């Protein structure tokens, strides 16, 4: 091999350049593919890096503002959508049983009163950290009635395994009847 390369140095330089070019094309191709995947998931699955940043003082949630105890749960808004406010704390969600209507735009607003918790609604793509100091906001819509488990999926302390809530999706009419009597709904006992 040494003989070949020393015999014609010019030729081997050209060969190296050819290989470099191919290598560059492959790398550019991989980068283009990654960007394309990002664009596809962003446009068609509405995936997005966490970007709805909103801050709140975790020590005064219960004193004033939208996360006071009497304001937690599901609220019917003027435009027909439903806003659900939830607090995660060691070691429960409040409310523990969340009731929402099917086929209705829903906005979840979740925050933590102490440490980092997690929130995952099974059977949906809602999956987020719940951090003290920040409000997590998601918009979603449930297609049909049913029950979904909502466990805390960030280890939050020794009682972590007991921390979960229920999300009960009911028919629009049933929800409207429940909402007639009260301004904030939950299915807590």
């Amino acid at each position, binding site marked *: 091999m040494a003989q070949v390369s020393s015999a014609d140095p010019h030729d081997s330089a050209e060969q190296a350049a050819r290989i470099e070019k191919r290598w560059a094309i492959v790398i550019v191709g991989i980068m283009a593919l990654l960007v394309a995947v990002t*664009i596809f998931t962003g446009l068609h699955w509405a995936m*997005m890096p966490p970007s709805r940043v909103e801050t709140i003082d975790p*020590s005064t949630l219960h004193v004033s503002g939208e996360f006071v*105890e009497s304001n*937690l749960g599901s609220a019917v808004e003027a435009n027909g959508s439903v806003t659900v406010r939830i607090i995660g704390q060691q070691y429960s969600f409040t409310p*523990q049983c969340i009731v929402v209507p099917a086929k209705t735009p829903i906005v979840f607003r979740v925050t933590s009163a*102490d440490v980092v918790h997690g929130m995952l609604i099974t059977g949906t793509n809602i999956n987020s950290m719940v951090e003290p100091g920040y*409000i997590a906001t998601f918009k979603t819509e449930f297609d049909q009635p049913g029950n979904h488990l909502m466990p805390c999926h960030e280890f939050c*302390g020794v009682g972590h395994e007991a*921390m979960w809530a229920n999300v009960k999706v009911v028919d629009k009419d049933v929800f409207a009847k429940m909402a007639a009597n009260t301004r904030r709904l939950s299915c807590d006992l």
Partner: protein
Amino acid sequence: MNSERPRLISLRNPWFTASVGGTLVVLLFSMFVGFIWLPSAQNDALFKGLLDSICSAAGVPRAWLSETSPPVTPQQPVSSVVLTPEMLIGPDTRGSIGRGATLALRCTMCHGARGVSAANTPNLAGQYGPSIYKELRDFQSGARTSAVMAPMVVGLGDQDLRDLSNYYASLPRANSTSAPSAPDIVATGAPMRNIAPCGSCHGGMVNKLGAPWLSPQPRSYLKDQLEAFAQGTRHNDISAQMRNIARNMTPDEIDASVGYYAGNK
């Protein structure tokens, strides 16, 4: 030899211009995708517009809920105490304990001369300061009701409550009678029914700020409070933290936990 080779970082080097130029193009395109194109595709008015989409994607904090019905105000008074780990640490803790000891003369009738009660009232000796302070403030605000305690805290200022809390926290705890092994509800809770172990907040395993030390407390007091939480007649726990647990407990679990923490009291 070296002087004859073309310089690496130079616009005349086609490899350099192509690779750096290409990287720049990819960077600019990716920034366009990440800061403008994808945010604008979100179904959210706050992402629309060039500046909005760039700021939102970059994570500038803002209010994300524009139109919403006003918050529902509580029907009954709830706790408004702000709990932080340093809440009782002042410039003069020793002085505070001394003043608290004098103030505590009015408490001795029920809570014992040194915070260890002979009646069915809570033992305060060695209780966590923030827990005492929180309950005193809640008695004052009416968030926690008690015909006995309400008149006792009338006229006490915020510093008085801090002094009392520091004083009782400084006293030595009553000797806990050799505790039997913890029942399941205390050691492991009942995770399938949303019940964290008692020990995960009330000491034993971990102490959570604002949660009281329970061992030993009088049996009847513990049982009354747990049942009051379960029925919602006591509601000064912040964001229903204790009610969430208590209402899921069975009568047997209430008895087991009360029996454990009460010892022979």
